[in-house]
């Protein structure tokens, strides 16, 4: 089986030398390169269950959900919040205010004013005060984690226009279950904090990310690294260098749901070894590596928080119903090549990815675990908006390692992805 795959890849490489559109495009023999099934770890104090099940609204396709326990710091007064979106594309825990029953202390600036945050996502933003919680997931615990409590315009925290304007409208906040499609977001991406890094730790007021909120209204403020909303994994006592997202393969035409695991730590326990996974280095200034598809190379990223493959292929028919998604009449097999990048140092990792795009209108009626869901990123050729976004479908059938910047992990310099 393995020999067959090596042979197939060699033939692909040869034919590439003579073909236009090398590194991307249709492939007519997808079955011969199907990888062996991944093994999903289900036991261990560092293992939490995740489910691709539509979430609290029942219709959020290709999103993975987890339960997170938050506690009043230093106490056993805790609350378990289900339906938290697992997001490898961001860092830090965010929970919708109205769902929190446990009392969490408000973070205050040095002058005593309460601190709030505005974090821009793609097409929406989250707004709300920064509070402190002890966070527990499976057997892992992190103490005094700054988290964001999502709330629009609650007393003392009116949303400033410098937060709402970049995304377009007040309506594009994601601070309600109806708009977020989740009870919160668990950002387990490649950064420990959500704004600074060790070499540029302060989140400057000019970024319009952190605000202090005197009674006259919230104004941008500088925020030190340790006070920024933090990926809880980085604050675990052990298993704190990253995570592994483990999801099974799903039926080609989609299925109702799928369950898998979020495993904490890389190479720290007997159940989270790096094994033979290929390590892809990441440019730590952007959180991206790169992908070559249809002869074009773009910055790219592995993001469970994106609910599809989002990339540009003008040859794929677009949907009439599910606007912005691809709707080929029959599934189309495609190939792209991922390459590690590095801001400084030598990039590592390169490999091809075979994937399939199906008809989104049909897929959405099949359930919420859709391995062939794809959509467009731009309306025309080369654009600064053009990233290759490997969303949740990429994670089906793979164990994907996410190593946190600055942490020590086997296989190479962090941050990296490995699969």
């Amino acid at each position, binding site marked *: 089986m393995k020999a067959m795959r090596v042979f197939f890849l060699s033939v692909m490489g040869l034919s590439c030398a003579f073909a236009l559109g090398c590194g991307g495009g249709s492939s007519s023999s997808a079955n011969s390169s199907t990888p062996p099934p991944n093994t999903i770890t289900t036991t261990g104090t560092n293992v939490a269950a995740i489910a691709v099940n539509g979430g609290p609204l029942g219709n959020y396709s290709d999103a993975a959900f987890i339960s997170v326990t938050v506690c009043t710091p230093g106490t056993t007064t805790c609350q378990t919040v289900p339906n938290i979106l697992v997001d490898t594309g961001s860092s830090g825990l965010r929970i919708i205010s109205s769902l929190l029953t446990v009392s969490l202390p408000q973070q205050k600036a040095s002058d005593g004013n309460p601190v709030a945050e505005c974090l821009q996502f793609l097409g929406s933003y989250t707004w709300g005060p920064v509070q402190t919680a002890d966070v527990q997931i499976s057997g892992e615990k992190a103490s005094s984690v700054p988290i964001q409590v999502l709330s629009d315009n609650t007393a003392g925290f009116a949303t400033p226009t410098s937060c709402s304007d970049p995304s377009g409208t007040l309506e594009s906040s994601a601070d309600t279950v109806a708009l977020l499609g989740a009870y919160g977001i668990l950002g387990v991406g490649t950064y420990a904090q959500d704004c600074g890094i060790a070499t540029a730790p302060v989140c400057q007021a000019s970024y319009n990310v952190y605000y202090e909120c005197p009674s006259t209204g919230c104004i941008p403020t500088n925020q030190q690294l340790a006070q920024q909303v933090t990926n809880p994994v980085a604050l675990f006592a052990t298993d704190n260098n990253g995570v592994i997202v483990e999801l099974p393969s799903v039926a080609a035409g989609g299925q109702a749901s799928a369950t898998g695991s979020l495993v904490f730590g890389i190479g720290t326990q007997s159940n989270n070894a790096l094994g033979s996974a290929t390590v892809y280095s990441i440019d730590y200034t952007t959180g991206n590596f790169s992908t070559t598809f249809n002869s074009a190379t773009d910055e790219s990223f592995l993001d469970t928080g994106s609910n599809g493959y989002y990339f540009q292929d003008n040859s794929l028919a677009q949907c009439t119903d599910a606007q912005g998604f691809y709707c080929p009449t029959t599934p189309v097999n495609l190939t792209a090549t991922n*390459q590690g990048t590095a801001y400084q140092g030598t990039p590592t990792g390169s490999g091809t990815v075979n994937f399939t795009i199906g008809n989104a209108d049909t897929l959405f009626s099949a359930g919420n675990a859709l391995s062939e869901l794809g959509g467009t990123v731009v309306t025309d050729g080369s654009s600064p*908006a053009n*990233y290759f976004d490997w969303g949740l479908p990429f994670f089906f059938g793979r164990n994907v390692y996410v190593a946190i910047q600055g942490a020590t992990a086997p296989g190479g310099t962090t941050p990296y992805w490995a699969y």
Partner: protein
Amino acid sequence: MNRRRACCLKWIVPAAAIALIGMAEARPAEASLGGDVGSIQADQVKLQGTRQTTPKAAYTVHEIQAASGTVVREYLAADGKVFAVTFRGPFLPDMRQILGNYFEQYSTARQAQVAQNPNARRARRPVVVDEPGLNVQIGGHPRSFGGRAYVPGMLPAGVQLEEIQ
């Protein structure tokens, strides 16, 4: 080989990447996309940035390095109007500022998209607003955003979209 990679180092180290003729007009103004050169100055103030200009055959590129690290480029046609704006960097620029008088059209289109899809399945994905009089695209994730906005009817003759980076 890796054109976007080469491109991105340029965003991070703009001063070393392109030959530029630096200048800074000090005229106040109102808007950006669809606005005049003064509107670019207003954007520069808002973005707390430094600005450099690069003349091309059919237009001039005004590149603003925002304090946040995000680079905003405004494309000024020979008729004195901004016909396109692009950005790339760790934070979104203020879209109301850079879209100027086109912000309301963008905002209305975004609200219509949200209304059309009350379920969440479209919420966290690239932004594409494609209307006859306005095209806006935004991609990326927290710490890395890229985008382009232009008015199709204002593109100078002979200018290809691929130039608008």
